[in-house]
């Protein structure tokens, strides 16, 4: 009797513990105005949540108690409680927010306003716009240095990375990159900046100390015309030795050695692959495939696709919730 009670008590505990411990990948569906939540254990969509119009960039705060959503056509950044899926409030974001980055202070969102050629800085506590910085035409890629001192905005039609001092909100350098830059990341403890160029078909590597170009990554897939190899989003392993690069309509993810800048493998995924997120233990990578409307799960160790998960229409952004 005693034994039986004990068992059911521990079962109960387990049942309660499960939803809280199961890690999730959150995906924004640009043309469905929803988010799909994928359970990493079962690799199934467990929740679909309605949000504002044309959700694209999504990111969690540092303790994953808040999700920020760029609702581009609602001209707002929405703040969600990921536990309940409830939208708590909107942040003023400027027009047409596409992509953003949360400063390491966990308080300032830096937002690219695609239609307006500005970068907007919003204080998520006071919910006020702190600054707007004029950048090039169609800003999109956003990155913040690990020390929080520099934010990068890339502009798609101006073809530049704009280096912004987070203290003064002033641009202190502009560097040209190849055509249509889409995504930027600081690499190797902030010593390098990488910028992908969709139409140029390259990733440009900069030395952050003097903003000089130090390298360029090229891609080549047999049977795919170079014009269709269009790098967009990319993510790095925690040791920053390997980068995974989404190649858009080439329908592949490239695996790049960050020392040699050579491609080591190409992984076939869904159609028009855009962005991606790792599982918390970095053993799996989830890619959003815009045209095919699904997410490919890649086994990081073997560099093989292991599963395709149907989500909403035009999945765009991805973020992990441990």
């Amino acid at each position, binding site marked *: 009797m005693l034994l039986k009670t004990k068992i059911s008590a521990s079962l109960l505990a387990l049942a309660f513990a499960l939803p809280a411990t199961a890690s999730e990948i959150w995906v924004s569906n640009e043309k469905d105005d929803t988010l799909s939540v994928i359970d990493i254990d079962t690799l199934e969509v467990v929740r679909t949540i309605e949000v504002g119009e044309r959700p694209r960039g999504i990111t969690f705060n540092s303790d994953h108690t808040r999700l920020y959503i760029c609702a581009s056509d609602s001209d707002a950044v929405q703040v969600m409680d990921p536990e309940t899926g409830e939208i708590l409030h909107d942040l003023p974001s400027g027009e047409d927010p596409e992509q953003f980055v949360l400063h390491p202070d966990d308080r300032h969102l830096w937002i690219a306003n695609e239609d307006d050629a500005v970068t907007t800085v919003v204080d998520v506590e006071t919910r006020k716009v702190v600054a707007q910085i004029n950048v090039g*035409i169609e800003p999109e890629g956003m990155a913040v240095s690990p020390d929080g001192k520099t934010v990068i905005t890339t502009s798609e039609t*101006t073809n*530049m990375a704009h280096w912004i001092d987070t203290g003064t909100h002033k641009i202190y350098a502009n560097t*040209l990159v190849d055509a*249509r830059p889409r995504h930027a990341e600081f690499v190797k403890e902030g010593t390098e900046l990488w910028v992908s160029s969709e139409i*140029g078909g390259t990733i440009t590597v900069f030395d952050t100390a*003097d903003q000089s170009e130090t390298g360029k990554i090229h891609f080549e897939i047999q049977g795919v*015309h170079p014009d269709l190899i269009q790098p967009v989003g990319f993510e790095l392993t925690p040791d920053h030795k390997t980068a995974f690069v989404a190649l858009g309509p080439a329908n592949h993810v490239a695996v790049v050695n960050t020392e040699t800048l050579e491609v080591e493998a190409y992984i076939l995924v869904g159609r028009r692959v855009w962005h991606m997120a790792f599982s918390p233990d970095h053993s799996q990578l989830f890619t959003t495939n815009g045209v095919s409307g699904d997410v490919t799960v890649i086994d990081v160790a073997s560099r093989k696709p292991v599963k395709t998960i149907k989500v909403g229409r035009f999945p765009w952004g991805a973020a992990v919730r441990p």
Partner: protein
Amino acid sequence: MMTRTWCVIGLMAFVSAMPASVRAEEIDISIGYLRLETPSRPVLSGLDPIPPARGIEGAELALKDNQTTGGFLGHHYTMDVVSVPPEGDVTAAAQAMLAGHDLVLLDMDDEALLQVADLPVAQAALVFNVSEKTPALRSADCRANLFHTVPELGMEADALMQVLMGKRWTKLALIEGPSAEDAALAQSYRDAAWKFGLKIVSEASWTFDTDLRRAAAREVPLFTQDFKAHDVVLVADAHDDFARYIEHNTWEPRPVAGAVGLVAEAWAPVVEQWGAAQLQSRFEDLTQRDMTAEDYAAWAAVRVIGEAVTRTGSAEPDVLRDYILSDGFELAAFQGRPLSFRTWNGQMRQPIPVVNAHAQVASAPPDGFEHARNPLDTLGLDQMESDCHAFEN
């Protein structure tokens, strides 16, 4: 001595730091836009009036794009627009324009284009054809200083045929309008059909002088009744005159293509992929109207200039010309592929949207149309087909 050494070291440090950020050499780039207005033609319907600043406003949007980019580089872009009335002296206007501008967009017919391109003052300039689709300008009548951002007729006709072929709609009935431009368009359809193995099974000339707005339902079924078995009715109507009354009035229930229905053109308001929605909305904000193919050609020409100036740090026509024709040149232009120029005739390589009134149906070339150099060269005059020799050295 000591001081001097320090000075040198300081300078060297400065010089090596230069490429780090973008150079800030101040450059002024003054672009000209010269238009010879076309006399307005009577057409059956007034539903789609031609916007008075068609083309010009496309160039204005690109100018703004260039100005924003230039603002970070110390490059100052300006544009002067001169529009000559139909009976005006375009040569005199061109002389004046070229005296102050060596990068000029030309929005005019082929005869006027060649007059301007052949002016002595134009020889050191770079001029861009943004309106004339005549294939001869990309072949025997090409000029070394003349680039084309507007596609030639054959590029659009090839695009349409590729898409029809992909659907296995290969038997075509062709209706040809009465004007010389209609004849040229019909010929481009015949050539493209032959190139891709489609068959024009019947042809008919449009000769009606009735008011089709009222009579189409009665006249068009009879007019199309004698066509041999066909998949598609193709309409060659270069002036947007009668084609709109053909669709849904044919004897057989067939899709209509060409001037109406399924249309191949360089740009249309329904193009929205590849970030195109952003270009459309910026254009609409500027002009309160839809962006046309003519606006796109002018936009592209000014963006080509901007891209070449940005990358070369020069506004010298010969420097820009070399760069535009080099492998390094590529323009991101919301079509999903980089645009570049054909080195044999100065024509801009571009995908061609194939659209209907409500959506983009395809982007030509569709998958499966391959080419040794670039799939985009399956559209229009390929190197072997062009009689242009002005670009050979």
